[in-house]
């Protein structure tokens, strides 16, 4: 218990330092106005840029963290709000990051009079939009599955308000929250480039960061710099996984409210290492010291808690309401554009939308089949020899986080020059936004195949093909469907970085809804076109989800669920 508390506290201390550092760094540059944010593409700037990007990611993550808990909690606990809130989240999830550009520009940038801080906030907001929805979903779903006996037990123990939340409810959502955080974090990196260059038509704001460095070097065709930045990115991702997500993941296992134990416990060397540090005498001395300095603070906190058990809940709900107000404001600012957009006559390009959607859809189908054709065998292989998981997981985690535009040079070389055509390149890029979700979910599914069923397959002498068809495929089917839903979501979002790209000052694009949106945002800046393409895209995604994927999901749960 004490260890848990300490770990939590150390995370907070770490967060505090990073926050303080960020404020300091921002304070340094606050003096100059935005329009001339100077983007120095010298290699020596890279470390600084990496730190900037990391801080943006971190702040966006922090925001997503609190948002998702507040949103998920409210949606799961208030029956009236539940329906609309979940539906709203569903729609939000289907809006590609570019769809939030108008909000970022109209609201945040202009709110701060075009100053650097406004652009920074806008950027953080954009990263937030690529992180928070799936986290909010996982919190909501965790809260929905809180076993009622646990709530009863908490009630019987006299826990109420904040205590009930922190001791009984919150721990339940930790495992899934951390798992979805990992995916969200990777998603944040994936769209970093889109989030660091904010533009509507001629208005263009570029922030110093790893993302803009990457896009600049590819636009200029400096492959060496792209590779360097990419290596830095991968290094950061690996370190982050090793020292943050992996230990958190292992630590979160103990909050799992399940009795069945499948497989050996997972290990994280850094978690053991943290625990060792926590147990050293020096650290104990430090703890004592901090105890003396912190004890007055702690007393006030407990005092506050005693009085403010309900207060804290109100504060949390307040934060949630605040977020909702912000979103409402954002939507209403959209609405203004919306009304303006429809009061004018429609441009002729609108006729191209159905064809564009069709073309994008076909590309998604091809990418999806490609993704399936390698993720299924890999998942099967991992199922056959579990140690392979140790190799596949880190590769998948890194792969998922590499931003698509960073791969432009290689994919253009490969796609256009080897496979002959921008279409092939676009499909490869879409693949980068789809395949990892599929792989993550399949790996999860394959680990849940009961050991006795695998043993039956072996003992009956099922051939590889029969075991694949009779055991593996049905067993992972529900996971395959969940994975497909997220992969398609990711794929639609990835269209905007796949169908339109700039390499060596040359624009490569294909007919597609993603390219249309890109053109509307980066080239013409026509609010009407932005709106119409965006709406038609959201409509397509939502309809597909509702009438295809959701039905398939219900069917999968009915027929292939393993109950023991």
């Amino acid at each position: 218990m004490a260890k848990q508390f300490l770990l939590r506290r150390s995370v907070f201390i770490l967060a505090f330092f990073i926050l303080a550092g960020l404020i300091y760094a921002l304070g340094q540059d606050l003096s100059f106005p935005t329009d001339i944010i100077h983007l120095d593409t010298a290699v020596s700037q890279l470390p600084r840029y990496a730190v900037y990007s990391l801080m943006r990611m971190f702040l966006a993550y922090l925001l997503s963290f609190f948002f998702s808990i507040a949103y998920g909690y409210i949606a799961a606990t208030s029956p009236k709000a539940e329906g609309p809130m979940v539906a709203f989240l569903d729609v939000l999830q289907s809006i590609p990051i570019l769809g939030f550009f108008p909000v970022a520009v109209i609201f945040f940038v202009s709110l701060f009079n075009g100053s650097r801080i406004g652009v920074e906030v806008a950027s953080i907001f954009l990263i937030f939009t690529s992180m928070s929805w799936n986290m909010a979903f996982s919190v909501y779903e965790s809260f929905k599955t809180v076993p009622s006996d646990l709530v009863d037990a908490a009630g019987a123990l006299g826990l109420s308000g904040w205590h009930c939340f922190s001791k009984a409810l919150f721990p339940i959502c930790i495992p899934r929250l951390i798992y979805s955080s990992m995916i969200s974090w990777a998603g944040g990196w994936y769209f970093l480039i889109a989030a660091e260059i904010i533009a509507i038509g001629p208005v263009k704001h570029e922030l110093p960061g790893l993302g803009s460095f990457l896009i600049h070097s590819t636009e200029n065709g400096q492959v060496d710099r792209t590779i360097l930045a990419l290596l830095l990115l991968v290094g950061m991702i690996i370190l982050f996984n090793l020292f943050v997500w992996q230990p958190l993941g292992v630590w979160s296992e103990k909050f799992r409210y399940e009795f069945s134990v499948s497989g050996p416990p997972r290990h994280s060397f850094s978690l053991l290492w943290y625990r060792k540090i926590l147990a050293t005498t020096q650290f104990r001395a430090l703890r004592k010291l901090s105890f003396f300095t912190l004890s007055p603070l702690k007393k006030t906190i407990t005092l506050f808690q005693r009085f403010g058990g309900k207060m804290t809940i109100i504060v949390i709900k307040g934060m949630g309401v605040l977020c909702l107000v912000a979103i409402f404001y954002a939507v209403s600012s959209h609405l203004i554009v919306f009304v303006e957009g429809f009061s004018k006559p429609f441009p002729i390009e609108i006729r191209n939308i159905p064809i564009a959607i069709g073309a994008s859809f076909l590309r998604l189908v091809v990418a999806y089949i490609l993704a399936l054709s390698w993720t299924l065998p890999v998942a099967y292989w991992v199922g056959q020899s579990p140690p392979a998981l140790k190799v596949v997981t880190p590769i998948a985690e890194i792969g998922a986080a590499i931003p698509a535009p960073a791969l432009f040079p290689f994919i253009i070389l490969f796609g256009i020059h080897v496979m002959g055509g921008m279409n092939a390149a676009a499909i490869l890029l879409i693949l980068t936004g789809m395949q990892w979700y599929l792989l993550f979910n399949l790996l999860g599914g394959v680990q849940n195949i009961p050991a006795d069923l695998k043993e039956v397959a072996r003992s009956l002498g099922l051939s590889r093909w029969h075991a694949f068809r009779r055991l593996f495929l049905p067993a992972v089917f529900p996971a395959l469907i969940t994975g497909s839903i997220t992969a398609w979501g990711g794929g639609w979002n990835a269209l905007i970085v796949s169908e339109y790209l700039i390499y060596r000052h040359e624009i490569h694009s294909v007919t597609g809804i993603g390219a249309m949106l890109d053109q509307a945002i980066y080239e013409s800046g026509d609010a009407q076109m932005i709106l119409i393409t965006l709406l038609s895209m959201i409509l397509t995604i939502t309809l597909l989800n509702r009438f295809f994927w959701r039905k398939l999901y219900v069917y999968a749960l009915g027929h292939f669920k393993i109950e023991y």
Partner: protein
Amino acid sequence: MNFIEVQKVFKFFQQDRVLMPVLKEISFKVHEGEFIALVGPSGCGKSTLLRLLTGLVLPTEGSVLYKGKSLTSVNLDSAMVFQSFALFPWLTVMGNVEVGLEARGLSEEMRHKRAAEFIDKVGLDGFEEAYPRELSGGMKQRVGLARALAVEPKLLCMDEPFSALDPLTSLALREEVLMMWEDHTMAVNTIIMVTHMIEEAVLMADRVLVLSPRPGTFLADIKIDLPRPRDKKDVRVNEISDQIFSLMAR
């Protein structure tokens, strides 16, 4: 030539970078047509030993000979019945029984016929199109048994087949298995069963092999030549049970 011969088998499992001994120097022989029960306290490695006999698990040292040949992979002449039933939830009763036949390359017509035959033998006819989720524990284990028997194995291995069932159901199933074994409806006549219930072992088996707590070593090989059907209240059943119990308690 012996049907099965276990020669000085050792088994270790890797656990946290430490090799944990599970079985230590086990040797015994199984003759064709025997009904053998493996008993021992929980965690003594009796389930591992059963898997060694079918080739699902290979020994760290020593060897398991089947008809004189050392097992290096799963022995397809053996079939297994699991404590947890281990049925495929997405297949019907018929589908579950057919799975093993499909793997053996039987034509659709043949496997349908054979599956139906064994479904009938275990008393499951009428349930062909049911899914496992519709069945009670007793019916599920009958499917497990039919699936194992349908591949017409030479050796039937049962891992605690009745422990997941309620007392009355397990009693009914135990009697049915004995009845089928005695009048040869099973087509297989060599059975090895793992159990932690001493009385169950004494009531059913020809020989009881007793293992010590972990790491499992061989404690005794007890021949039971009481006439069947055996009576729970028979003094000799009690005597042998007591003897095994005191061996394990030592």
